[in-house]
């Protein structure tokens, strides 16, 4: 028999092995739910599948009695809008500052210490400050995401810029390029796929800050809804929302990978 480190699954076995933990968790939940329901039919902690269906139907496919909106989709739209605006702004700032500090040593020496200092501030600690400065509207939630992930993006892209072999910079100079041309023709195109990598890593953090901001001050949003119904121990709403957020996070990650592979094939082939 081959050693364990040399035994690799074929595709169908790999898929089966990968699905097993998901099925196990679902079965375990189903069993736990039935046990609790048998003891107390009004148990709220582990709702049954039909209760989930009712809750999803009520939130996603029936207009709210109070506002006439479909709450689930309204929450999704608000949350995604905040998340995407925040992440897009952070990506832009991160790209600009990471690139310029990595490319121009004088600017790097000037800005890197302050960027490092700011990146050490826990963003949640300045959340009250954001609420005071930017109000309780959309802006403060977007700002929390920006404050939360921009320092990481700047520092990561600074390092990625530095990692580009100096041979290429010398080569570009011998081809007559000036600093500006080197930045936009040699460094920027090679940093863009690395920006997408960094965004994938920071999306989890962005969700964290989004939900934190919504939990504290909001009138809609996925995080708001979860924290709202927590008061009534509505696991039938909380769990579908968590699964939905997980799915959205997966979808965004998948989109970033696909985009990167479509636009920057040279980057993925060379790795």
């Amino acid at each position, binding site marked *: 028999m081959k050693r364990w480190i040399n035994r690799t699954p074929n595709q169908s076995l790999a898929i089966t092995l990968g699905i097993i933990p998901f099925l196990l968790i679902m079965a375990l939940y189903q069993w736990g739910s039935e046990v609790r329901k048998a003891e107390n039919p009004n148990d709220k902690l582990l709702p049954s599948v039909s209760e989930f269906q009712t809750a999803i139907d009520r939130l996603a496919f029936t207009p709210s009695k109070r506002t006439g909106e479909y709450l689930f989709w309204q929450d999704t739209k608000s949350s995604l809008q905040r998340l995407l605006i925040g992440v897009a702004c952070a990506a832009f700032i991160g790209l600009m500052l990471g690139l310029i500090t990595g490319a121009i040593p004088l600017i790097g020496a000037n800005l890197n210490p302050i960027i490092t200092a700011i990146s050490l501030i826990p963003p949640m600690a300045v959340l009250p400050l954001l609420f005071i400065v930017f109000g309780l509207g959309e802006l403060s939630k977007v700002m929390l995401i920006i404050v939360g992930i921009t320092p990481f993006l700047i520092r990561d892209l600074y390092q990625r810029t530095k990692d580009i072999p100096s041979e290429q910079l010398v080569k570009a100079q*011998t081809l007559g390029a000036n600093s500006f041309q080197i930045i936009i023709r040699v460094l920027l*195109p*090679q940093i863009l796929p690395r920006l997408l990598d960094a965004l994938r890593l920071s999306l989890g953090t962005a969700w964290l800050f989004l939900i934190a901001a919504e939990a504290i001050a909001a009138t809609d949003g996925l995080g708001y809804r979860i924290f709202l119904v927590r008061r009534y121990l509505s696991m039938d709403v909380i769990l579908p929302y968590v699964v939905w957020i997980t799915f959205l996070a997966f979808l965004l990650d998948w989109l970033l990978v696909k985009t990167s592979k479509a636009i920057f094939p*040279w980057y993925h082939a060379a790795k």
Partner: protein
Amino acid sequence: MSNYQIEFRHVQKSYGDNLVLENINCQVKKGEFITMVGTSGCGKSTFLKMLLGTEQHSKGQILLDNQPISAEPCDERGIVFQKYSVFPHLSVRENVAIAKEFESSFIGRLFGKRRQQALDEADKWLDAVGLLNAKHKYPHELSGGMQQRLAIAQALIKHPKVLLLDEPFGALDPGIRKDMHKLVLDLWQKYELTIFMVTHDLEEGFYLGTRLWVFDKTRHDPHAPHRFGSTITFDLPVGKTDQASYQEIEDSLSLHALSA
């Protein structure tokens, strides 16, 4: 005024107390092909970097066409490194055409007809190095030898006064290396280039160059190895293959290799 293209006058290079090169005096005419050999750490790469502009000499003068050489890399001096010389995000012909784009556009990017002209000129140089068939490929799709051909084409499109080669074929298979030798000799003759090439392969140095330089220390203090720097200990014309001098250099290099 001299009619030498490149002149080193009493050049010395040190890092703090560590003397790397000393007493470098040499003159090179246009069209010479200098190959440089020496043990590792002998300063031959430092010499090339001073010519390139990525390292500055500590004392003396380096002249290019009777003018002090510029202190940073510029388009007078082309370079081919052992690795990482080409841009991975550009296709083969874009890699060459980008030199034209740097030249005639502030943002380093040409459009329409002028871009087409740049690409056409790039194709001419790709043809010269035998890469025309691969012009739409990306560098990661090329073999090591083809990447070096591309790096040479990039350098040539700028018509540099000197072409610097830093162990360009060190990572290639022997068969490919033979092809590259032939290519470099062809290009050197056709375009009357001045070439400086660092190599660790003495045979390659003998075969390719018109002049072979050996970098070595003439004085050695066993208690303070950094006290004395290397200099050019052999400077011989190698058009005529001379078995005796080949052997002599081979012996002096291997002697160091043994003691090192």
